[in-house]
């Protein structure tokens, strides 16, 4: 049974489930003084210290030192997170690369199938350079197993793409995590891309469309994959991509930036087929702010506001449209497909709710930044000061 003080319970359970091994939980103070994550042999059974009042004894073999090392680091992470209030981001960046690196150098064996992303990663033959990507599928067939098998078959047909695992998407749908190896481009040649006309398979819809004239190695890998998922598997898909991973030490950052990019895309590129971390410098800047930094700004921005600073979807769209039209009302009404009078009415509603006149650059900017930050605070992903 899990109680408030049992910070190690989830970690222990994940480990047991991932490697399909059983344990006995012993809740008593052990005579020897041991640290969290320390292992010892009792009779022929391996035991691991959890906290000063509990340890676990494994009923199945955990002879592989790399397996034991994984649990040690995981327990230490969990302990640090519980006692020092480390953020999710800090835990990942501090310890994950060590975990991965250690596992790789110890020739980690194949593990049983698991959905635990962190543990699964280290068993895959990921060869940097590359980057992590997250594929979102906007619709899925009722048979989840069949859907997964279909998607995995297509992904497996691309040698430079490594399927990492399935994760839960906040929308309730499944999402796939991949590692895209950009070090080699077997079968995808430079001459496939038109120098003069650039490369624009997604039609550059949306405000933040930034299609490079010559696609990055990443896009050269990703576009054929997405096209084959859509044309062969007939699965609607959008990709979010993390920062480049040069070697195993970057893996944690690669995953962290992937999560950030996913959060950014809802505001900066909802319609784009591929959204890359770092695509929008302003998003990078704003995503780096902690709650401690965001809150004073939001507090100052809300001064003089009679209603909520958070705009309803139609008013938020109005703000986006006016900015996209460089504050030109005629152009904004064309972009938003609204009659000028309707647009003016919405602008007035924004002013009466927030006190900001979005026809003025400063007002539009402050309100826009506030929208991004408020939306961030409402996200399901943990922020840096969680």
């Amino acid at each position, binding site marked *: 049974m899990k109680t408030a003080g049992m910070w190690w319970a989830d970690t222990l359970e994940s480990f047991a489930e991932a490697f399909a091994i059983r344990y006995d939980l012993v809740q008593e103070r052990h005579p020897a003084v041991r640290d969290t994550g320390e292992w010892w042999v009792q009779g022929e059974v391996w035991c691991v210290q959890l906290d000063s009042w509990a340890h676990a004894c494994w009923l199945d073999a955990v002879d592989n030192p790399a397996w034991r090392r994984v649990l040690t680091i995981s327990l230490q992470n969990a302990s640090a997170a519980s006692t020092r209030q480390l953020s999710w981001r800090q835990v990942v960046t501090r310890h994950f690369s060590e975990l991965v690196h250690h596992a790789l150098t110890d020739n980690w064996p194949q593990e049983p199938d698991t959905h635990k992303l962190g543990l699964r990663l280290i068993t895959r033959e990921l060869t940097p350079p590359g980057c992590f990507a997250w594929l979102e599928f906007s619709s899925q067939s009722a048979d989840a197993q069949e859907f997964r098998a279909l998607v995995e078959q297509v992904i497996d047909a691309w040698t430079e793409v490594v399927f990492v695992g399935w994760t839960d998407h906040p929308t309730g749908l499944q999402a796939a995590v991949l590692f895209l190896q950009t070090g080699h481009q077997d079968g995808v040649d430079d001459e496939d891309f038109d120098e003069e006309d650039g490369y624009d398979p997604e*039609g550059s819809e949306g405000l933040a469309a930034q299609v490079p004239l010559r696609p990055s190695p990443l896009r050269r890998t990703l576009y054929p994959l997405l096209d084959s998922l859509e044309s062969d*598997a007939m699965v609607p898909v959008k990709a979010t991509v993390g920062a480049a991973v040069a070697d195993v030490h970057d893996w944690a950052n690669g995953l962290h930036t992937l999560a950030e990019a996913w959060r950014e895309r809802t505001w900066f590129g909802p319609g784009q087929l591929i959204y890359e971390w770092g695509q929008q410098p302003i998003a990078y800047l704003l995503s780096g702010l902690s709650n401690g930094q965001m809150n004073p700004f939001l507090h100052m921005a809300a001064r003089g506001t009679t209603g909520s600073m958070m705009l309803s979807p139609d008013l938020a769209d109005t703000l986006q449209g006016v900015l996209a039209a460089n504050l030109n009302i005629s152009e904004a009404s064309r972009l938003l497909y609204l009659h000028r009078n309707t647009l003016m009415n919405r602008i007035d509603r924004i002013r009466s709710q927030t006190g900001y006149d979005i026809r003025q650059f400063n007002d539009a900017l402050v309100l826009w930044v506030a929208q991004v930050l408020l939306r961030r605070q409402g996200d399901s992903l943990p922020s840096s000061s969680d």
Partner: protein
Amino acid sequence: MARVQLNSIWKKYTGDVVAVKDFNLDVQDKEFVVFVGPSGCGKTTTLRMIAGLEDITAGDLYIGERRVNDVAPKDRDIAMVFQNYALYPHMTVYQNMAFGLKLRKFSKAEIDKRVREAADILDIGHLLDRKPKALSGGQRQRVALGRAIVREPAVFLMDEPLSNLDAKLRVQMRAEIRKLHQRIQTTVVYVTHDQTEAMTMGDRIVVMRDGVIQQADTPQQVYNYPANMFVAGFIGSPAMNFIRGELIEEGGVITFRAPEVSVRLQEGRYAALKDAGVVGKEVVLGIRPEDMHNEEMYLSTYPDAILNARVEVAENMGSEVYIHINVGGQSLVSRVSSRYHYTPGTELKLAVDLNKAHIFNAETEETIPHHVAEAQAVR
């Protein structure tokens, strides 16, 4: 075979402007329709909505008699060809063409039959054992088409399929796709940003801008009777020349006037111009480069529509010459026969073919039809 109907289709992404607005189009069975427009105009988004790869925010989409708004892509009886060949590098041509069918659990015998038939249509039977690396760009594109053909869909959706090919191959493949369409007799919706591709391939072309259809008609109609300045400028190469000026009525005669330009319009157009309420107002005169002539015959036919021009640059294209000219401070382009040789600085007279000159409302940018009846038909 199927008809595709888009009734008041809208696409709106959360937190973004509207990508497609009130899109209405009826694509007939076996028709080849081309969506054309600049980047970001919504043409790919519309195609993806037909495919089921994007949700439809509002409106009704029919493929055949069936409303398919909520039907999964795999159940829409469509096949897609993308700009990427998206060929699996480690599979042979045969395996590449068979892969989609294998995923859909077709029998081996059926897969073999379909792949060989498609290879025969595309004349790639001799390439079936090769891997993509060993194919030329054109051959790869054929394989990509083959992967769609083996599905035997009711509708083909093609998104810039020729954009990765060099100019020469593109011209060749344009004709190949048209021939393919004639042979397989299937409805095709084709997206391109290239107006030449649109003009040469489509039974009908749909010109889009900012998510809105500007004009949907046959290539010839769109070229000869553009609905507005955007269409007029987008379709045709070199682009239509625009001269901003004013329509003056004096002594029962309507004349277009701009600096150093005076063009007396034909009486037959007066009623439509008056009906549109643009007489005495600012308008834009649109003239295609081939409708400005240096031959004596035209100069004598249109003595009231002569432009005094100075040559800035002459581009010899072999069969014709594009002369970049300055008329009253405005830069225009004229297309003349290559038997004429012009050097920069040459002064010349050009007659505007008034039957083909267009007048646009300067404010709305809409075309003023030549005749009142046309205007009423447009309304």
